[in-house]
């Protein structure tokens, strides 16, 4: 296996793919958003229990590649307890990691996704769950999608 592929499929990603955290419908959720990746059919629902502006609890459900599932799983562990503004700031850092491969020092687990940047086609896999989470935070009714929708 090449270094690029080893970098893409790091242990932490494989672990989250095999044993996803916070997976399944959240009974206490008061927000939910659906994410779609129309080019490959990946789907992700993100459930939020918001307490004011703060994410008290979070879960995800869906189907997709190891990158998309592990990313959504890891995201839920990172967003629990965060405010909406903190969540958005974290997404911006995550987005930078997957597009540039450079991780700020204070970011630990999310840095596992740095290898995605050498596989541009997979960036939307890594960000699918995040798009759904941000939409759920905004209370958007429209499903999150990695591409523009046309009817």
């Amino acid at each position: 296996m090449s270094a690029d592929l080893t970098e893409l499929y790091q242990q932490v990603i494989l672990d989250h793919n095999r044993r996803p955290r916070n997976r399944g419908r959240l009974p206490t959720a008061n927000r939910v958003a659906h994410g779609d990746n129309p080019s490959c059919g990946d789907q992700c629902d993100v459930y939020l229990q918001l307490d004011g502006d703060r994410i008290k609890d979070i879960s995800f459900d869906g189907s997709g590649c190891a990158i998309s599932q592990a990313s959504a799983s890891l995201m839920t562990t990172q967003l629990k307890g965060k405010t909406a503004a903190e969540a958005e700031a974290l997404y911006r850092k995550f987005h930078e990691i997957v597009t540039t491969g450079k991780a700020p020092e204070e970011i630990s687990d999310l840095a596992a996704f740095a290898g995605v940047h050498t596989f541009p086609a997979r960036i939307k896999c890594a960000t699918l769950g995040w798009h759904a989470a941000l939409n759920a935070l905004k209370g958007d009714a429209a499903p999150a999608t990695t591409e523009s929708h046309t009817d």
Partner: protein
Amino acid sequence: MPAWPDVRADFPILHQQVNGKPLVYLDSAATAQKPRAVIDALVRYYERDNSNVHRGLHALSMRATDAYEGARARVAKFIHAADPAEVIFTRGTTESINVVAHSWGRAHLKPGDVVLATEMEHHSNLVPWQQAAKASGATLRYVPVLGVNAEGGLDLAALDRLLTPQVKLFAFTHISNTLGTVNPAAELCRRARAVGAVTVIDAAQSIGHAPLDVQAIGCDFLAFSGHKMCGPTGIGVLYGRRALLDKLAPDETGGGMVVSVDYEGATWKPAPERLEAGTPDIAGAIGLGVACDYLDALDRAAIRRHDGDLARLAYDQLSKLPGIRLLGPAGVRGGLVSFAFPDVHAHDVVTFADEDGIALRGGHHCNQPLMRKLGLTSTTRASFYVYNQPGEIDALVASLQRTLKFFRG
């Protein structure tokens, strides 16, 4: 497997390394590679004959027109059309089907009518009919696909129930791009004709892979793309029976398709010109004609055997992989296999195969409703063509074994 000439030397693109490994191209159902003869024809046209068609009196224009119309006649012969005028050049299968959905649909569909399709249609032979049904008030119905892995093909008993006199049009695929199922096109057309329904065949996956005779099949319309049969991208064909084409109102209007224009209106030429507004893809049509020559020289009956043999070999080899779910028929099939693992996603499979220089396709294959019916969101597809060899299936199996080992530990 019977002997098959190694034609790899005809395809310049195949002689390269991808990720340090020799390229194994198993994505011909998405687009086929181009033989040197087709590439040379495009270069020759642009270097020697390039000119607009049907309008000029100078030497180059006459040469371009002869080559373009020669390509039309060549394609007509390739599909055994009764008349070259029954061959309309389009951008591809999608545009061909849209022309029928718009032009024929607008003129003939009304509330109470039924458009019949099948559950295995590619989006290109499904969404245009949804739109035509919505616009006209007609109802769209589907012939079911049988079996948990769609191994049973179309439900022909249900077809008899569904083919009522209300059915005005029946659209179906010749070979499924996801399942590899070969539909009995002539039989389906015969049954549709019995209730007076017009037939539209999506031949994108069959055109370059088997002998095809539109008169023997008895279809009214048939659509295909040049790029899936060794031709260039951007050129495709709508075949239509002359009687239907001449009554088809043009979907696009403009230059080249009119007899006479004044400030108040215009009159249309007969087919094929009435359905080819504007400057066509001249080079593409010429390249497509050369692709017809290339495939006929190989003999399309032999190509069908070769592709089918590779697909069955792949099906047998892949069925030994633990946990694999193979879609479509176990027996006779077109040149592709589609499969899924419960624990390893198609996109991960494709990424790992790419690492080994193997080009596969992973996703829903523009077949979302069928995927949903089968309880899947995606599959991995390997598809075969004239340049593929049995050894490439060994490479595929070895790559998949490595991938499964990595994810399963």
